[in-house]
């Protein structure tokens, strides 16, 4: 790829400083590289001491790792953000309407906009949710929308995260670290705060309390436990919201409620922000071997004794095969054209698409329909002949498991390297809260950055880092 094909968020395509970065550039010009190098090390120390780590699956606590943090902020203008947030709000509204519909009358299927088997044969579709009305009508209390940018005005949704999106603690801690290390940057740039998120989350969850609630709703965060890769985030959010962090074995069903074992006996929980996947949530209703969940919680849920956030069965909305229908879904439920673009997607289950994908494999990105974390995907332009051949075999064997997309020229932003600033590819995950009061989008989000030169893989499990994301005030 030619360099000028790639849009840099600081320098554009023509090496012209873009306006949102003006304030940053003024500051950076006056900075000494050795001071910044010291700051970069200091930031790592802060993260290590605070214990902002993620665990590597299946390992003990010796394997807590730091996600690399880059000290150069990513800057988004107020105007860019307004457009983005309108698009995000529209999309999230549609996702909730879609979820309600497919667990009720399935109008969208009746209207022929989505094939019936996309729903009924989908692993993420939970028959237990059919006909169930969620408290406050909310399905996805917390959503993370993964966006990528390819040009000045061109944003694409790469993925919707409607199950248990993670990473919000990095959004908050990254900002906190930047405020501590570079206070002067924030007095010369007017950056919209992100620190309200925990309060908003708490309020938003409490607003979805179930009918059985008496008095102020009791909220709790359910974690799979201390060895889960996102345990830090779970404890961070519980702490910031001032609520209990519980595990399955702290909970039991009593008198039609889900209750937690306290030093003074069992106490009912009204809203459970669960960071446990659907299939582990209730051994009586789903995976019987699960030790992470609460036996019988689904029955309490259906009887209005507890709110589970996000609702079980929301995975049907962020499935990569459903993704390709998102423009239709948005239009169907909002009556408007989708503001945010989808990446063109070939569903390999369709013979014509499969043929196209196989012919053009070296130019495409192929993903598993149910995969996540950047695993099990093929980046055509970067793949070897052997890898292409292997994927051809996989595609032919199980076409329904894959979708393909064109390789996008992801935008770059500067990161700090030993020799100064250098461009790296990024994505952006803004966080969205949904409650009966409305949809709230925190100005900013998690920017993940591929630290390796030229790499398009931003996942932290594969060497990606994060950086603070600024949305400027108007």
């Amino acid at each position, binding site marked *: 790829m030619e360099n000028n094909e790639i849009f840099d968020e600081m320098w554009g395509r023509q090496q012209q400083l873009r306006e949102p970065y003006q304030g940053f550039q003024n500051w950076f010009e006056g900075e000494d590289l050795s001071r910044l190098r010291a700051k970069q090390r200091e930031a790592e120390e802060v993260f*290590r*001491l*605070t*214990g902002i780590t993620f665990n590597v699956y299946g390992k003990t*606590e010796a394997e807590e790792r730091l996600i690399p943090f880059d000290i150069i902020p990513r800057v988004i203008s107020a105007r860019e953000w307004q457009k983005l947030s309108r698009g995000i709000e529209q999309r999230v509204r549609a996702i909730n309407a879609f979820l309600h519909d497919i667990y009720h009358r399935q109008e969208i299927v009746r209207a022929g906009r989505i094939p019936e088997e996309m729903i009924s044969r989908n692993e993420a579709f939970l028959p237990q949710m059919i006909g169930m009305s969620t408290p406050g009508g909310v399905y996805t209390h917390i959503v993370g929308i993964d966006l990528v940018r390819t040009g000045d005005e061109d944003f694409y949704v790469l993925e919707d995260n409607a199950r248990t999106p993670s990473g919000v603690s990095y959004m908050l801690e990254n900002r906190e670290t930047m405020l501590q290390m570079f206070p002067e940057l924030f007095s010369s740039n007017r950056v919209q705060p992100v620190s309200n998120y925990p309060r908003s989350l708490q309020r938003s969850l409490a607003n979805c309390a179930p009918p059985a609630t008496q008095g102020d709703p009791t909220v709790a965060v359910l974690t799979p436990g*201390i060895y889960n890769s996102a*345990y830090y985030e779970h*404890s961070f959010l*519980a*702490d910031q919201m001032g609520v*209990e*962090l*519980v*595990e399955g*074995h*702290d909970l039991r069903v009593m008198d039609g409620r889900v209750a*937690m*074992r*306290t*030093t*003074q*006996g069992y106490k009912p929980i009204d809203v459970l922000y669960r960071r446990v996947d659907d299939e582990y949530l209730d051994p009586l209703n789903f995976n019987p071997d699960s030790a992470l969940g609460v036996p019988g919680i689904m029955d309490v849920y259906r009887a209005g004794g507890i709110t589970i956030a996000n609702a079980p069965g929301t995975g049907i909305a962020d499935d990569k095969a459903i993704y390709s229908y998102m423009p239709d879904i948005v239009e169907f439920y909002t009556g408007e054209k989708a503001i945010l673009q989808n990446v063109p997607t070939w569903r390999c289950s369709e013979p014509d698409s499969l043929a196209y994908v196989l012919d053009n494999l070296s130019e495409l990105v192929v993903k598993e329909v149910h995969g996540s974390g950047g695993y099990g995907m093929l980046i055509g332009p970067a793949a070897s002949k052997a890898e292409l051949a292997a994927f051809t075999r996989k595609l032919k064997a199980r076409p329904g498991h894959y979708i393909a997309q064109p390789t996008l020229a992801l935008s770059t932003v500067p990161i700090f390297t030993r020799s100064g600033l250098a461009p790296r590819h990024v994505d952006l995950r803004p966080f969205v809260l949904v409650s009966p009061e409305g949809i709230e989008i925190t100005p900013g989000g998690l920017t993940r950055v591929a630290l390796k030169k030229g790499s398009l893989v931003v996942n932290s499990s594969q060497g990606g880092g994060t950086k603070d994301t600024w949305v400027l005030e108007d």
Partner: protein
Amino acid sequence: MLGKTANGLYWMFRHLERAENTSRLIDTGQRIALTRSSAAEDEWSSILDTAGVRRGFDEKHDGVVSKETAIDWMLRDPDNPSSVLSSICTARHNARLVRTALTHEVWEAMNGCFMAAKEILARKVGERDLPDVLGRLRQRAALVRGATHGTMLRNDIYDFARIGTFLERADNTGRILDVKYYVLLPSAFEVGSSLDNVQWETILRSVSGRGGYRMVHGQQIRPRNIAQFLILDKRMPRSLNFSCCKLRDNLAYLAHDYGDTPPSHALADTLTNQLASHDVDAIFDKGLHEYIQNVLGSLSEIGRQIEIDYRFYE
């Protein structure tokens, strides 16, 4: 508060206290071995007994005690769950479990202590570095204690932290007395040999009590005074009486908070009242060994009852 959280706080502070106590014992062993050229192995053997880690040591080292193996076992062997490093790791693991109950300062102090211990104890510690290493570890642990004291709300969270601290401390002082009780008997006083002087000093050093003892009893080291000081003296922050009173006080704060007095409280009251009503002569009449055994038994019974009363487990 979740039962699990109470459990985590209690064990975090028990292990933190244990790490300090063990490092103090190593320090003691080292000092005594330095001042006595002969029979250093005997001294380390006795230190292992005092720390209550003898059985595991013997299994690993076939009962052969040397200075190096004894120090390494107590300081950093992962096979010894009560080694300084293991204790700090367990304390920090529990802190991670109950992170939402701790202030940022306490968590950072605990995590900093853990990170420092991992680094300092990554390989065998040579004799030359030992005093410095032990000093740094104790400083790190003291920082956790200081942050706890200075930043935590005085609520049930704090109470469980303190209950863990004082149960562990009473248990530790009790065990030191139990292992060394024979050097405190009146017959030993009659002997007054240099060997016993060393033993008495071991006891006082291992509870950081030499200075305090001197202030209260002067230069003369007498076994009866040592027993009085470590069992009954309420001014001595590591004595049985002091630790048990604190244990009872913190249980009482809980009772006040929760409006409930479960069975562990009566057990703690009984033990504290016993300690308050005895003088040291009566203890010797009854038999020092039996007396200490009795206290240790009560302490573990109280510990078990607290776990039940406050629903630490399912």
